[in-house]
């Protein structure tokens, strides 16, 4: 009998990993004593960052949502560490961006080394006029904890969210109009039903397995050893240092990156044919670190070895079941496109599912979640694959070209854009997206064309994205329009801005370009749906209906 079956028969659920924070201990639910399976509008499988964010998005809309996780809290180990601007903006919309920003480490300076030479250094030179920086470094358990704390706060003010720890889904049956879930708990099994099931259960998604769905892509034959260490005398600057073929020979490449609490992430590329157990022995980890750091005292906080694949599911929607985050797509860690893109999935899915459940949009609107996020996943896979191919060249000739780029970059500016140790994670523009409407703002900036995520801009009092919030918005800049309108059950809220204020130069640059006035139709996920020079009632209504999948 296999372990899962044995556990199921004995009502046992063993932890697969150690917890950093026990935040949702098992509690008996009334569903477990119900005579017939209780039906829930939305069930989320997986209480990781993407599952909890999904619950927040829906719960804050007032939609009841139940999150099931086979553990009672957040796993140990820092794992994801780079959280990008768009991800933080989404978290901010849910009300937990600020604690992340407060805790996180902001960095702008990076240095690239080859062997014992510095090839060049770069400054991210973040664009001014955004509430959030390009990136923060933050251990994943903190990111998750801030999300769960926000859930607790939202629950206290009435958001219908339930987090159920030690609730392991062992089987699902997908019907045309609902899903049945068989759940095991420490107190025995029970059954519930869901109108909609969201799979946020990670790269090895049990749900995907239960449904027999594909997950194809490219395997990279390399292993990476992570050591998170605490320096005793911390004199290292807050910079990202990346070595290609480092002189200290601790790996084929090495990354050094700062996290909060004085912890440094060191990431060694150690090859494919390795013995994990041997490599993870403390003296062997220390041998690599000592070669790199020299006479420095440090304490090892966490170690792990990972390998990765770049792959995705063919489709993210399967009838009443939707997949998000690593369960739907997996990328290499270079370029920070894992957790960051998962948050963009949630951002995209939340409002669409909300409208479908409220009966304001047809279920086919959820097919556009699939179209848009598959598009995003492909872009992320492309970028992270390219960085991986540069960092770990797979043939002699690509190794020769890689080192030629590094040699030239040391002397000549032209070769520096070719050096790829991971590109800045940016949200994708849904160019040609199924929900995009008119692009009728002559002279308007390319960066705010339909499909684009709205770039933030400073206002005299706060920031633009705070004004947009999470509902459909008609943004008018120096343009006349009614203060609000209602179309097909959607209350379109107007945000009226002018460029006469002190901080408005940036707003004009990002949203008007050469145009004198501008009117934007903006989706709840803060992507541009359509834009015009002036307000037109019919055009606005048409594109709003289009943006919710009505025509």
């Amino acid at each position, binding site marked *: 009998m296999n372990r899962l079956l044995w556990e199921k028969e004995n009502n046992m659920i063993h932890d697969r990993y150690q917890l950093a924070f026990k935040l949702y201990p098992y509690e008996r639910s009334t569903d477990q004593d119900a005579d017939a399976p209780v039906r829930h509008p939305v069930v989320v499988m997986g209480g990781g960052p993407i599952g909890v964010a999904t619950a927040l998005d829906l719960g804050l809309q007032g939609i009841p949502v139940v999150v099931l996780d086979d553990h009672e809290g957040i796993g140990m180990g820092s794992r994801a560490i780079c959280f990008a601007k768009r991800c933080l903006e989404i978290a901010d919309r849910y009300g937990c961006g600020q604690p992340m920003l407060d805790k996180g480490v902001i960095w702008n300076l990076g240095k690239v080394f080859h062997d014992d*030479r510095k090839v060049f250094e770069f400054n991210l030179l973040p664009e001014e006029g955004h509430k959030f920086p390009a990136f923060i470094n933050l251990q994943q358990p903190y990111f998750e904890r801030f999300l769960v704390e926000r859930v607790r706060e939202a629950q206290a003010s009435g958001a219908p969210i339930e987090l159920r720890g030690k609730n392991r889904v062992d089987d699902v049956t997908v019907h045309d109009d609902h899903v049945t879930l068989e759940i095991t708990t420490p107190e025995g099994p029970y059954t519930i039903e869901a109108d909609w099931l969201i799979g946020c259960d990670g790269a090895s998604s049990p749900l995907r397995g239960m449904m027999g769905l594909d997950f194809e892509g490219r395997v990279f034959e390399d292993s990476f050893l992570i050591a998170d260490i605490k320096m005793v005398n911390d004199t290292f600057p807050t910079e990202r240092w990346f070595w290609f073929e480092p002189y200290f020979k601790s790996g084929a490449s090495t990354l050094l990156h700062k996290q909060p609490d004085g912890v440094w992430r060191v990431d060694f590329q150690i090859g494919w044919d390795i013995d994990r157990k041997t490599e993870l022995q403390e003296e062997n980890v220390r041998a690599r670190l000592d070669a790199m750091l020299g006479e420095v005292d440090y304490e090892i906080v966490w170690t792990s070895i990972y390998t990765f694949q770049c792959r995705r599911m063919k489709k993210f929607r399967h009838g009443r079941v939707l997949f998000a985050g690593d369960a739907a797509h997996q990328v290499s860690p270079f370029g920070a496109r894992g957790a960051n893109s998962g948050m963009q999935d949630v951002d995209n899915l939340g409002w669409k599912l909300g409208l479908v459940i409220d009966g304001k949009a047809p279920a086919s609107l959820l097919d556009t979640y699939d179209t848009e996020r598959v598009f995003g996943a492909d872009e992320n896979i492309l*970028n992270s694959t*390219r960085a991986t*191919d*540069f960092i770990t060249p797979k*043939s*002699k*000739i*690509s190794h020769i*070209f890689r080192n030629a*780029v590094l*040699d*030239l970059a040391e*002397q*000549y*500016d*032209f070769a*520096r*854009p*070719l050096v*790829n140790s991971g*590109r800045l994670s940016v949200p994708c523009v849904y160019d040609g997206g199924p929900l995009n409407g008119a692009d009728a703002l002559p002279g308007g900036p390319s960066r705010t064309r339909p499909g684009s995520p709205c770039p933030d801009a400073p206002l005299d009092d706060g920031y633009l994205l705070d004004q947009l919030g999470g509902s459909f918005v008609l943004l008018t800049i120096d343009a006349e329009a009614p203060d609000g309108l209602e179309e097909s059950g959607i209350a379109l809220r107007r945000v009226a801005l002018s460029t006469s204020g002190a901080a408005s130069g940036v707003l004009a640059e990002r949203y008007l370009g050469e145009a004198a006035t501008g009117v934007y139709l903006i989706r709840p996920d803060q992507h541009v749906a359509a834009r015009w020079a002036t307000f037109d009632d019919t055009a606005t209504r048409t594109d709003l209906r289009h943006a919710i999948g009505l025509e």
Partner: protein
Amino acid sequence: MAELTLTPNLDRPDDFYAELIAAHDGLSEDESAAFNARLILILANQIGNTQVISAALRAATKPDR
């Protein structure tokens, strides 16, 4: 007089690099070397100016370390 450009000039550097590496997929080392030789000759003809090509040859020479 034309000068050798040593500042960034590629419109899409990542696309170029990926296409360059992909062009070598499946080639043996000798075939790759021959491919590179042909590519250099084609690009040299595109540049046309011998002074610029001479400057490029000097820039590509690996400095002593």
